[in-house]
Each structure stands twice: as C-alpha cells, then as structure tokens.
C-alpha cells in the first residue's frame, strides 16, 4: 500500500517538476504538495441582495475528484460578507432533486428564516427557491449550512463574516477565513448505515492483542474491567479518519491551502469548524494564538498554543508571525486519525514541516462521569486511561494525511506502527515540541501511576452503577440509554481528550470571558437539566432518553424568561450542543462577563451549565451538532412563547 502511494507521490512530484517547478521525490512529504499553494481567498458574496444556488458538483481534493453539493459552484459555499445593521435578502435556489435548506448558524433571525425544515419552515423543495430576508443585529464570524438530510456532509456549508457597525475592538492588519471540514468518498447515507450496523466500523485504532503484548494502551486488568462494562476506551469519535479527508477551505492536506502574511502583521484567523463529525485540535507550531472571539462574540484576549474546536463552533485568533517563513496550521482530529493542514506563509508555494500526529487518547473513567479525584489513590487513573503512559497500539491506523507529517519517504502506515514503539514520532524529526513534552511527562509520572494501578484494579467497577436511573429521574429508560453518569462533573476546565498533558497552553472554556458585560444579568428564575444520552452499541443518540422521532413534547420557555440549563453528558463521547435563535452565557465563574456561545462541547461524562434568556419567540431546533448523532435522534424543538399565550 505504501509503495503505491510512494509511486503516486513520485509521479506527482515528477509531474510538477515537468511543469517547471523545483519539486522532486527527494523533498520531504510535507513539501510535496499538489499545488504551489492555493493562496486564493474564498469566493465572496456581499450586498443587500444575494443569490445562492445549491447544486451537485464535483470537487477536487488532493488531486482526486469527489462528489459534492456546493453553492454557486464552490465548496465551501461562498463567504457571505455583510455589515451589522444592514438588511439582507438571500434568494436561495435549490437546483437539487431533493429538498434543501440553509440555516444561518449563530445569526439571530426571525424564526421563519432560521432554515430548519419541519421546525422553522417547510424547507426548499427540489428545483425551487426561497427568499430569506432579515436584518443583521450582530457582528462576528458565523457560518451557514444545510439542515436537510445529510447534505452538510457533502459540502453544503460556508462561512459568514459580519463586520461591526462601529469600530472593531479587534485590531488586525489582515484576515483569513479558515473553514475546517471533513469530506468522505463514502456517501453520507452509507456512513450512517455502517455506524448503525457496526458502531466501530471506522475505528481502526482499537485496542488489540498485539498492543497488549507490546505493553501498549490499557493493561490486561483494565481491558477486562472495560470489557466487563461493555465499553471501549477507544470510542473517541465514531466517523473518523478512515472515512474522511480533513479539509481547510475545501482543500485536502496535500493541496496545502495557504494564507499569506507579511512578517510583523497581525493576522486574524476566523476559524470555523464546519465538519459533520470532527472535533479538531487546532495549533500553529511556532505561533501563539490570541483568541479574541468565540462563536462570533468578542472575548477578552487569551493567549494559547492550541485549542479544541467542536463541530459548529467558531474561534477568531490573532497571530503575529514575525519571521519570514512558513508555518503549518494543523487541525488534528480529536482521535488523531488524521489532520487538516494549511500553511501560513509570506509567499505562495512555501510549506513548513507538518508535526506528527500525536498518540490517540483513550477514554478514562472520568469520561464515564466517574469522579476519580474523590477516591483515594485514584489520581493516577486518568493518566493511565489517557493512553499516554504506555503508548498506542502498534497496529493503529491513520488516514493518508499522516504521510505528510514526517520528513522522509516511506512513512505511510508504518509510521503509526512504529509510533507504538515509543511515543509515536519520538524518534522522528517531525515531532513537535509539545508532544515531546508530553512524552517526557508521561515518562516522569509513570512510576507513580504504576504504583496506583493496583488500587484501581482493586476497585470493583460494578460497585459504581453505570446505569442508575435514580441519578437521572427524567431520563426515559430504554435500550437507547447505555449509561448514566454517576458523578458528572463540570469539565469546563478540561482542554479535551488527549490534550491534558501536551506540554503547552490549551484553551479551556473557563479562559473565555466576554469582552463586554452580558446583556442580561438577571438570576435565572429556574433551572433545567437536560441529559445527553446514547447507546454506542446501537448507535442511538437522544436527549433524556428520547429521540426526535419519538413522541415527545418541545422544551418550553416563556418569552423573556431566564433559565439555567445543565447539560449532563451520560455518554462517553463529547457532544457539541447547539441551540438555534439564541446565545447562552456559560456559567464558568465570570459573573456578568460570561462568554456567550451558540454551541458548546459537553465533554464525555461531564456537565456544562449555561444561562439562557429566551427572548426570541418561535420554535427553534436544539441538537447535537455531530451530524449523525442528530440524525440518530439527538435533537429537540425548543419553543418560546409570550407569557399570556402559553397553553
């Protein structure tokens, strides 16, 4: 397999060399790109009257044609650039042979223009059009996408930037919109069916006997404990690297989409995760990222080296590259099965080293909502479960993007195989310092953990009930609920699975503070628990044990009501939860400067609390933004009604 790819690479190199470029097969993999660097900005539409045409098309990803649904002939769809305070009319023409729709993710629009078929409007019928018209009451970075079927997976998504009516508090010399996404050669319907039939279908990083014998991942005792619970700690994400090529602005890692800068410039990166299923860990080795906006809302600047971005979240980051060299923007899939790659460079055609994919994390007991810190001697558990101490299964597979990551040819899958022998990539030059540091730490702590594993092993996992409905009385009992988190913790101080010990600063939600005071600082008049429930074995996903397709009532709110919502994750997977028509304030200890968001990741086994002012009358969608989780039923309608009108 690797041989074939190498030949392809050489052919590609040869073809480019034939084109008069100084590329050769001797260049490191990361430098052998398809192009001289696609420094072209995204196509942009602007003004008061905009026409968007949804149609099937072919897109080229890393030199391969792929079926897609685009808008105005492009994937991602064109950047819609507007100004706060203007009115916009968007005439959306559906050239598909099926219904379609556009939801303006994060925009506060009248409910009939929110774009969710069956909730806000009937949808846009095949070969017809729909006129959206609304005023822009906000500014910032947002995006838009289909809310019909699984079209989003095929490319039906694009960025929105709304410039502020007044001076922008964020200073920058130049900006780039970075749309991260995942694209598959497999049809979305097939992806969904494969996961329904076999939830581990795309997971080629499972624990194996080879890994056990090599002393990697969990110990035999831990594997037995997890097996007894019928849980797999490698369930980090379900549709993942083997299914996907990870894209930046519609381009594959080998396409090397390039953002230009002049050294010394303050460059604003508007990063949007428009994926269907991929949580990315984003970093630019060599540059610090100053986060200035989250979900379109300005935040007090926070300097980080890396951040996790859930599906549908957006972050604006300022970078100030001073050196006259290229930098790699890496969007590593949460399970490290592949990466999205772009380059920041002073000139097109430059490339920087692509850091090796770090070891894939393993879920820990915390991810099952068990607070290990409350148990004596359990402190080492998380690390032990983190898969950082013993290395990763030598047979774990990554997607082809891994071949870009280390200088030299012949890496292919062998790179991952070797990865298990130590910290993956440790003995390769392509390793970044952060991962090295993690390796060092893991080594340091190893002894301590070893000594504590006895304690953990001694614990009877069965003694902590995995499915105790008394912990969640509102959850409907049924086959769709595999577990109930016995001790869900607020994990907004947690950087994300596999980011605990990367050796540099990773953004956590608690770092975020609104730049301006929150518009509504009343105390919530009531609170509401919503459980995120699922069964990984059946690929069933729901809220409170009920799927969207089940008979259920909407979640009711009164207009103007302020309500505290506790999202409790009873599953072992993170879920990016999105509410339409509203922003909410995260309850993370910042009083009236709480960060305002439209989407928030609820970490596995964890809890996120936010306050919501239900100020937009109408029916609104509320769902997990992992496309196939929503499609499996993890969705509800939220209704907001004027006080007197309520039934």
């Amino acid at each position: 397999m690797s041989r074939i790819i190498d030949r392809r690479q050489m052919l590609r190199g040869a073809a480019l060399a034939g084109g008069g470029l100084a590329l050769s097969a001797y260049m490191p993999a990361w430098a052998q790109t398809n192009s001289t660097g696609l420094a072209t900005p995204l196509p942009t539409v602007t003004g008061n009257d905009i026409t968007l045409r949804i149609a099937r098309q072919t897109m080229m990803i890393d030199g391969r044609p792929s079926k897609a649904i685009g808008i105005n002939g492009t994937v991602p769809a064109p950047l819609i650039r507007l100004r706060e305070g203007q009115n916009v009319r968007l005439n959306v023409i559906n050239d598909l042979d099926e219904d379609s729709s556009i939801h303006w993710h994060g925009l506060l629009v009248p409910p009939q223009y929110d774009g969710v078929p069956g909730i806000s409007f009937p949808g846009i019928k095949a070969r017809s059009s729909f006129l959206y018209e609304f005023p822009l009451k906000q500014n910032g970075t947002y995006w838009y996408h289909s809310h019909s079927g699984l079209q989003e997976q095929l490319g039906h998504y694009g960025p929105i930037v709304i410039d502020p009516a007044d001076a922008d508090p964020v200073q920058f010399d130049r900006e780039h919109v970075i749309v991260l996404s995942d694209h598959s050669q497999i049809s979305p319907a097939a992806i969904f069916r494969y996961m329904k039939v076999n939830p581990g279908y795309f997971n080629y990083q499972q624990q194996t006997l080879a890994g056990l014998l090599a002393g990697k991942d969990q110990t035999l005792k831990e594997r037995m404990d997890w097996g007894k619970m019928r849980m797999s700690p490698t369930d980090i994400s379900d549709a993942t690297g083997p299914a996907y090529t990870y894209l930046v602005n519609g381009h594959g890692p080998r396409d090397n989409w390039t953002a230009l800068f002049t050294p010394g410039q303050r460059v604003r990166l508007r990063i949007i995760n428009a994926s269907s299923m991929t949580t990315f860990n984003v970093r630019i080795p060599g540059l610090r990222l100053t986060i200035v906006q989250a979900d379109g809302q300005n935040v007090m600047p926070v300097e980080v080296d890396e951040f996790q971005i859930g599906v549908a979240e957006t972050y604006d980051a300022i970078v100030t590259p001073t050196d006259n060299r290229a930098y790699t923007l890496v969007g590593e899939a949460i399970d490290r099965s592949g990466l999205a790659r772009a380059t920041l460079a002073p000139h097109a055609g430059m490339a920087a080293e692509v850091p090796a994919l770090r070891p894939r994390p393993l879920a820990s007991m915390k991810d099952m909502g068990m607070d290990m810190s409350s148990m004596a001697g359990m402190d080492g558990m998380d690390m032990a479960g983190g898969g950082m101490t013993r290395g990763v299964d030598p047979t774990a597979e990554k997607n082809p993007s891994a071949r870009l990551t280390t200088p030299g040819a012949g890496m292919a899958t062998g790179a991952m195989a070797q990865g298990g022998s130590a910290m993956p990539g440790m003995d390769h030059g392509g390793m970044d310092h952060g991962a090295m540091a993690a390796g060092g730490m893991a080594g340091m702590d190893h002894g301590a953990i070893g000594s504590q594993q006895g304690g953990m092993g001694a614990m009877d996992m069965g003694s902590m009930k995995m499915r105790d409905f008394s912990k969640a009385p509102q959850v409907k009992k049924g086959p769709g609920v595999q577990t109930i988190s016995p001790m869900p913790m607020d994990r907004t101080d947690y950087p994300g699975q596999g980011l605990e010990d990367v050796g540099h600063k990773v953004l956590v939600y608690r770092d975020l503070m609104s730049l301006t005071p929150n518009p509504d600082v009343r105390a919530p008049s009531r609170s509401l628990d919503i459980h995120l429930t699922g069964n990984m074995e059946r690929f069933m996903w729901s809220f409170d044990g009920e799927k969207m397709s089940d008979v259920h009532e909407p979640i009711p709110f009164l207009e103007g009501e302020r309500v505290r919502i506790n999202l409790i994750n009873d599953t072992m997977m993170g879920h990016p939860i999105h509410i339409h028509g509203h922003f909410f304030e995260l309850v993370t200890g910042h009083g009236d400067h709480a960060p305002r968001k439209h989407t928030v990741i609820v970490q596995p086994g964890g809890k996120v609390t936010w306050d919501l002012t239900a100020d937009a009358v109408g029916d609104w969608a509320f769902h997990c933004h992992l496309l196939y989780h929503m499609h499996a039923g993890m969705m509800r309608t939220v209704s907001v009604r004027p006080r007197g009108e309520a039934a």
Partner: protein
Amino acid sequence: MSRFALFLATTATIVVTGPAAAQSMQGMNMPGMTMPAKQPAAKAKPSAKSKRAPAHRATPAKRSTAPMDGMKGMDHSAMPGMQLPPSGQQPAQGAPQPMQGMDHSAMPGMSMPAGQQGHDMNGMSGMNGMAMPGMAQTGTALPAGDAPAPAPPMDHYADRMFAPAEMAKARSDMMFEQGGQPFHQVMFNLAEYQARQGRDGYRWDGEAWFGGDINRLWLKSEGEGAFREGIESAEVQALYSRAVGPYFNLQGGVRQDLGPSPKRTYATVGFEGLAPYMFEVEGALFLSTKGDLLGRLEGYYDQRITQRLVLQPRVEFNLAAQDVRENGIGRGLTDAELGLRLRYEIRRQFAPYVGVSYLAQTGRTADFTRAQGKDPTTTSFVAGVRVWF
C-alpha cells in the same frame, strides 16, 4: 419586589469590584427612588438569602427605611442610563460599558402590586454588598430560582407563517429522519468450506434484519451439507425482534427445518445480544408441532489481534428435552461445537478466514449415531468468508 432588590444587588456588585467599598449610590440616578444614604456594611448578609427566598417579600417593615413610594412611577427606561464604574473585568480596549441592552420590560416580577408600599428594604441591603470583597454576584454568578417550568405549547409556531398542512408534512418527515429510519443488514458470520475426513462439506450461519432501533424483523438461517450428498441439515427462522435493553434483543417467531431429515416446524423464542466482557451470545427454545422441545446456546468472541486480524472462538450447544428418534436426537445435551476462526478484515464487510471446527455429539445422540455406524465427532478444517452487506 425582591427581584428588583436582586437587580439592585447585582448592579451593586458590579460596583463592588471597584475599589471604593464605601461608595454611595450617588452615582446612580434612579428617578423616583429614595435611597438610604448609607447603611452599615454588616447588613450585607441577608441579601444573599433574599435572592433565594422570595418569601421575604412579604416581610413587614421592621427596620423602617425609606419606603419606595415611588415604585409605581419608577421610570425603568431611565435605568440604562446608569453609569457603572468600570469593574475589574472591564476590557482594556473599551470604555466603561453601560448596562446596554438590558431589557427591563422583560423582567418578570417587576409589576408591583399596590400593597407593596412600605416594603421592607432588607432586600436592598444588598447594596452594602460592596463591602464584600471578591463576590462577583451578578449575571451567571447568581443562583437560579425554582420557578416552575411553563407548560409546553400545543401549537407549532411555523404554522402561523406557512400552510399548516405543509408544515405538518415537513415536521413528520423531519422527525422520522432524526432517529426513525429503518436499517438493514445481511450477514453471514460463517460461510465456509469444511475439509473433513472422507467427505468435504460446507456450512453457513447467517442472519438478516430489517427495522428500526427497537423493532426488527430477523431472518436466520444455518445449515450444512456435504458435497455430492447434498444438504444434511438446514433451517430458517423468521423472528420478530425487540430491543429490551441496551445490549439485548428478545426474539420470537417460527423455525422451519429443511433438508433430508423430517421437515419440522417450531415455535421459537430466544434472545441475542452482547454479554459482559464483549461476548456475543444467542439462545433459543424451539417447540415443534409434535410437541418436542429443543434448545440452543451460541456464543462467540472477537479477539482483535491487529486492527484487521480477528480471532473468533465460537461455541454452540444444542439441547433436547426428549428423544426425537426420527431426527437422531437424544435427550439432554445433543451436541457441542467448538470453533476457532481467524479472519482478516480487508474491509469490515469482507473478511476471509481459516479455522478449525470440532463437533461432538454427546449422550444418547452420540449413541444413535454410533448405532448407524457413524462417527459422532467431526473435526473440520474450514476456510470461508465472513461477509455482510
């Protein structure tokens, strides 16, 4: 009233963050409100309580403070004009932010019954919260109340803008699509060539299902045969399957035996699912039209050696409650089969394998077989493909 007090308390705490603990209310221009000029800081504590306990609102005035006689006439529209001193959290970039966008008209509980005059100002003592350092009691720092949730509305909002019939169709389509769709799978766990002493044969064990998450229609089939001799035994089952827990399905239906032996029909009830330690298990009882009762237990475990190489140990036990002479079945455990198969998943759907299978008839069944001059045990080397689509 208490909510209003609460609001004041919250604004007060914005002030708190400023250094001037003894700040008076002079900076706040609230028309129609008379404020006590200063109150001892010691009274700060009850305010926290009052946030939680709306009951306090009925407390008659004991400590007489200035009654808020202007309450009814209070001009809320003037409140956004309150200039708050910059708090510690204020952005460096910006000027002090007024309480913009604060929609007082939307504040529930603001409507004041007339009888509220002379209300105790205890709740207002939150103003003295200024003296409490480090307490950012505003916005998300405030505890939530325990107001009841409203009743869900009976209507669909979009019906007001679009044709209700069209919306109803879109809604039912959308709901069905998010969690209601049926799926299907056809899988042969075993489809193999069996090399046996003397007479090579074949074997299959497969299933197909169609349905949603809970209710499914299952078809199962298994059987074996020998080349030249044809099918030795075969059966099909048609079952209704219902998910009864996170891991198990309960199944009931009919089984029809095919092949050379008497073609019996059975009513069947059974289960299949994932047992602790990740064992796939299956069990069933079969009651024939002649009243014979048979049973079967099956289990296998997929041990991943690598990501694609999987070792599958498999066992199957057949039982009978009585002799069924025409089928050569004896009472008790009739046979046990042990298999070990090693497959390679080229794709998840397509995995060729090799292995070994050992079948031993036991007890009276074995006696019947011996009586026919046959060997009650069979060892087969197998090669096949595990396939699903």
